[in-house]
């Protein structure tokens, strides 16, 4: 029984993370939510020490179930919402939580254009291409699906964004090495040519 209660709390924390990311909240309610999250985590950690190790691991594994659920919901919004803002928000949250299993879905949506008119104020959470920024936030797990895109995709914008992901995850030197390696082991001549083109474009990005 205790396990279920604590598990529910973990799930609640995830839902709060999600709702905090996509809804507009007043400063006061943000503070209240933060305190609630802290209290829940403190309660959870206190209860952990009352459980046997096996139960602890079962309980803590619920975090992964929750992350999977979170990713599932976000990928659904990313892939099917008619609202550009909602799709951008979903991409942002996948990247912010570094949900690496979402990298292929982000690559699929890499060209999502969330262009707004220039605005004043503190930096926006995402710029014109939120899926690209999310992939950069995810880091290394985003590189392989981006190279996959570069080997198969002909759309100029999507290719350019994927090159940027590889460049800003790996850095200027390693990104070139990684693309050269991918090209070297590629047996398909058309794919090899696309990767060569990616290498050329990569060298035009700022060092």
């Amino acid at each position, binding site marked *: 029984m205790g396990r279920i209660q604590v598990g529910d709390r973990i799930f609640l924390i995830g839902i709060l993370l999600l709702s905090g990311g996509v809804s507009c909240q007043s400063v006061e309610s943000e503070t209240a939510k933060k305190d609630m999250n802290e209290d829940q985590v403190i309660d959870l950690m206190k209860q952990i020490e009352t459980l046997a190790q096996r139960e602890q691991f079962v309980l803590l594994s619920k975090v992964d179930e929750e992350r999977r659920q979170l990713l599932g919901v976000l990928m659904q919004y990313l892939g099917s919402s008619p609202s550009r803002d909602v799709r951008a928000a979903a991409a942002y949250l996948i990247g912010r939580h570094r949900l690496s299993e979402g990298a292929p879905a982000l690559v699929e949506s890499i060209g999502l254009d969330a262009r707004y*008119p*220039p605005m*004043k*104020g*503190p930096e926006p959470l995402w710029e014109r291409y939120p899926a690209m920024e999310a992939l950069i936030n995810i880091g290394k797990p985003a590189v392989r699906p981006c190279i996959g895109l570069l080997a198969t995709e002909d759309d100029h914008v999507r290719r350019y964004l994927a090159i940027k992901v590889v460049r*800003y995850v790996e850095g200027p030197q390693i990104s070139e090495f990684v693309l050269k390696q991918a090209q070297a082991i590629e047996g398909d001549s058309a794919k090899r040519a696309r990767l060569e083109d990616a290498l050329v474009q990569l060298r035009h990005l700022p060092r």
Partner: protein
Amino acid sequence: MGTCDKKGNKDAAKEKGTGKCDETKKDCPNAPKLVSLTVKKYATQTHVTGAKNWATIKRSSDDVIVEATTSPNNSADEWSQINWSGDSGSPVSGKASQRKISRSDSKKLHVEAELGGVKDHVDIWVLWASVTNKTSGTTPANAVQFAARYDATENLGAKSYNGGKEAVGKVVPYAKITPAGVHAVVKSGWEFKRERMSHDWSDGAKDSPGNGTSDYWNTAWVDDTSHASFQKLTPDTDDKIYDRDAPNIAAFGTNDAETYNNFRQWVEWNAGDADTGGKCSDKAGWYWQGRWKKSASSQVELKDVGTGSITLPTDSHYHP
């Protein structure tokens, strides 16, 4: 074992043939002993790692109160025998179990007490931070990186991008927290705050006069704190925390846009507790000014970011 009186030494008592011992000596079972030392007021263990560590922000008033508990009676007579050492401060009038420790300098205070052979201590970290607004060079490795945004470099300062149609002032404010080594003890509770005062014009008209967060012709400071994702608020091994900002100038839906801004940054720690937390640095200023003209061949005609402040103009440059 024998009985003990309050004042006599056990050995001396034996010599005297009284059969009584000195309760101040550790080998006497009823001798007064220190039980524990703790902080009574004006320091906290919230956001603090380590059972003996406490923290508070630097302040010239409200000295930290440290209190000892003794046994068997926890009485004034026992407290008078406590040996205080380290940064032991001064006595608290009428409370012999307590000491008051100044928190007017940022340092690690080590307070120790001993009674009946039992020692205990507390370490009080008096926190302060020094804010630097970095507007040149590159983004520090532990700050949030700009990556593919804007001019797609980590070079700080005023940068044009998008073919010269837009510009930003890339700045990384960071705070060095003292005392040294604080990163291992006070890992959370930090906030990096920012306010701005702007005088902006759109086609020569004041851009939203007022002092709300969406107003850009201000007569008072307006909150401008960064979104959380642009801040690194867990001190790194250099005891630094980081913020980031990039105010811009671009086509804000007008023909001519002008922006002139002063910003000020500061650090707060454990801000929910007025006794131990609050503002934890001086305010450090930086500025950003830019002009954009639709009809110009190079539309960004001014981009300038730097430390300190500028005099905010009272008249539009393009439409005086």
